[in-house]
């Protein structure tokens, strides 16, 4: 009874191994012929980048090199993006102008619907370089409609790099769709928005539908913008319910280094969350709030190492008074932990 399935297994295994060997043989043969074909090698990405460097000067549109470049859309997009990391200024612009004239951008639009994610991302980056109205519309469409946060962010970056960055409302309409965590790349998109449209990001935080990680990145971007008008909003956020947002708000106040943040920072040193206290200790150092020297001395005895370490470093940033407090803490510590933190940071800085 059982013999048949067992023999089926045996025959199937032989079939599978023969099939795999046949495919491998085909690949070996294909690689062999490929190695004989110089033109094929030229179509590889590195070859295309070299080609692009060559054709960036006064190449007629019907030049075979230019035609060859545009033939394989995926490789062309990849080579173009790579080329943009190697060449800058007038040379890059000249090459981009030639490729725009050759309508490469239109050919790349189709890649935005490719099944391969990496191809879609590279196409967005390439379209950012070859930007025209059609490319802008296509990229804005990705920002608004894509279900992938990564793609939304990549499209937004591509638009920003072309000086046609999406407005905050367009970006938010895309971000609201996603519940995924924000990629780190979102930080650069938000930073540029914070610089160009101060106050807009602050208003965006009223949107409760945004994922927590996106909210944190918005707060960080506000901090990097250096817009003092946002201090009030950061103070409010530093007292919010989310520990991550409180920590980000306190760090943002530290990044702004404005003395008006002192009271909020003093309050944050008493936060229940160690990360918030650690950020507060560091921020006091950046703000140079000398009136909080005593608070920092107390933080040297905090139960969390990050808080103790940041407090010791912040005391050093406060100048001679802070250093004197640190020396005192190392020689006559309130707790063993405070003494150790003070002594170690002093020893490290002395070196």
């Amino acid at each position, binding site marked *: 009874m059982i*013999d048949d399935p067992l023999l089926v297994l045996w025959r199937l295994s032989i079939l599978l191994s023969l099939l795999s060997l046949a495919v491998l043989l085909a*690949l070996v043969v294909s*690689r062999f012929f490929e*190695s004989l074909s110089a033109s094929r090698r030229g179509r590889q990405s590195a070859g295309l980048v070299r080609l692009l460097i060559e054709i960036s000067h006064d190449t007629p549109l019907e030049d075979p090199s230019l035609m060859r470049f545009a033939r394989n859309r995926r490789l062309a997009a990849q080579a173009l993006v790579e080329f943009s990391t190697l060449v800058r200024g007038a040379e890059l612009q000249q090459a981009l102008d030639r490729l725009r004239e050759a309508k490469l951008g239109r050919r790349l639009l189709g890649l935005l619907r490719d099944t391969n994610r990496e191809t879609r991302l590279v196409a967005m*980056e390439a379209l950012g370089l070859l930007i025209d109205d059609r490319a802008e519309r296509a990229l804005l469409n990705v920002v608004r409609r894509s279900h992938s946060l990564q793609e939304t962010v990549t499209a937004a970056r591509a638009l920003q790099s072309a000086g046609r960055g999406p407005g905050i409302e367009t970006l938010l309409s895309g971000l609201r769709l996603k519940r995924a*965590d924000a*990629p780190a*790349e979102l930080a650069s998109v938000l930073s540029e928005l914070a610089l160009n449209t101060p106050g807009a990001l602050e208003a965006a935080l009223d949107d409760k539908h945004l994922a927590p*990680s996106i909210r944190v990145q918005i707060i960080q971007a506000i901090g990097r913008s250096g817009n003092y008008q946002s201090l009030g909003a950061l103070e409010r956020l530093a007292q919010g319910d989310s520990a991550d947002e409180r920590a980000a708000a306190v760090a943002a106040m530290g990044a702004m280094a404005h003395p008006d943040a002192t009271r909020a920072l003093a309050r944050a040193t008493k936060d229940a969350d160690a990360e918030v206290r650690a950020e507060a200790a560091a921020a006091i150092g950046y703000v140079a709030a000398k009136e909080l020297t005593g608070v920092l001395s107390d933080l040297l005895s905090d139960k969390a190492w990050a808080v103790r370490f940041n407090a010791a470093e912040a005391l050093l940033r406060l100048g001679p008074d802070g250093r004197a407090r640190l020396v005192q803490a190392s020689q006559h510590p309130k707790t063993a932990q405070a003494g150790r933190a003070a002594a170690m940071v002093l020893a*490290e800085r002395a070196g």
Partner: protein
Amino acid sequence: MMNAVSDLPWELIASVIATVIISVGLAQSAIYVIQLIVAGHALYASPPVRRSALLWRRYGDLAPPVSLIAPAYNEALTIEQSVRSLLSLRYPKIEVVVVNDGSRDETLKVLIEAFGLQPAQRAYELELDHKPIRGLYATSAHPRLLVVDKENGGKADALNAGINLSRAPVVCSMDADSILESDALLRAVRPFVEDPGHVIAVGGTVRLANGCTIEHGQVTKIGLPVNPLALFQTVEYLRAFLMARLAWSEFGALTIISGAFGLFRRSAVIEAGGYTHGTVGEDMELVVRLHRHFHRKKEPYRIAYVPEPVCWTEAPETLRVLGLQRARWQRGALETFFRHITMTGNPAYGRPGMLGMTHVLVVDVLGPLVEAAGYVLLPLLWALGLLSWAWFAAFLALTFTIGVAISVSSLILAELQLRRFPDWRHLAVLGAAAVLENFGYRQLNTIWRLRGWWQFLLKRQSWGEMTRKGFNRPS
């Protein structure tokens, strides 16, 4: 008495034995086939970025700071070149923490003289346990380098010390004698950049440097080893990294990140208690413990894997050294499995418990025992006429022909998706090795793994008698 023996239903007993062996073999083969399909899909849907210029453009200014921790033990001959190679890695924010784990040779002296190191101080907390630190050394000429001199305690101990002293949010654990690709860190941090809120660890593909040309601590020309043992291991590494680990990471159930190269969120490792002393499989143990810790906390997390080759290591080329290595790996897997046995098949631990640990049970725990039993018993029972040819054929299918199909298919996958073989000759030679490894090498591996089982049992009986795992890789 003789009658009692002859009255036993021998054919039934033989069928039961064969059924158990074939069932475990089938389960293993099914796992491999699923891994292959999942890895193929993953590589197609989210392929690696081949050109590092694209990575630089995308992530250059966003990559998180990384502390690269390289434990070193008796590596006076190679340490200077290894460290120079690490310092030349292309990564925006990196510090290299070399931990001299109580070397008996002149490793520390070589480092001090080669880099002009001076005694230094650094503020740190003893968040993870390790043997006492004897001194710290640094120099303003190489501000990214910190050398930690500590008492000997083993690799796990050295890594814990390095983690305590590191400042970056991401730590990279590696062997001091491994060779990293110049853009290895940029490739490996990609999951940390794309999903910073969840990713706590990332494994990378390790490849064998045997036969390659190495200049100034970099692989400058990819070659194939002449030694057949190293050649078989090249196929084995490709299969293990490209197929198995990629698939398990897609499932969210990756249970091992190679000790030769792995990135971890520092805070996550400290939360989970760092590397465990007293195990030879500290790399696997940490990953399983991270799963356990974050599942207990009910905190979403991800352990990811990048399929691009990021690290090169040298494989043993003698039977004796290879046997010792494989026995040690087996012992490490068993130690981790039995330390976390309650996770196995336990829905409370999600996919790592249901899939990852069950896979360890089938492949690493039962695998060598059943395979060895199969090699001995099935031919014997067939020769005695107690089993039909069909049973024996099924056994041959599971041990040889399916093995060929799996190994060759993983090569096909590597060629189609990564194209990392320099030319057709490499592909052809590796194809031949993928076939031949099933006839002899695989069986030797089973013997070495049985030795690992035996050592594991002896160790348990002798209550923690600890053999130190050296860092100098035999070659």
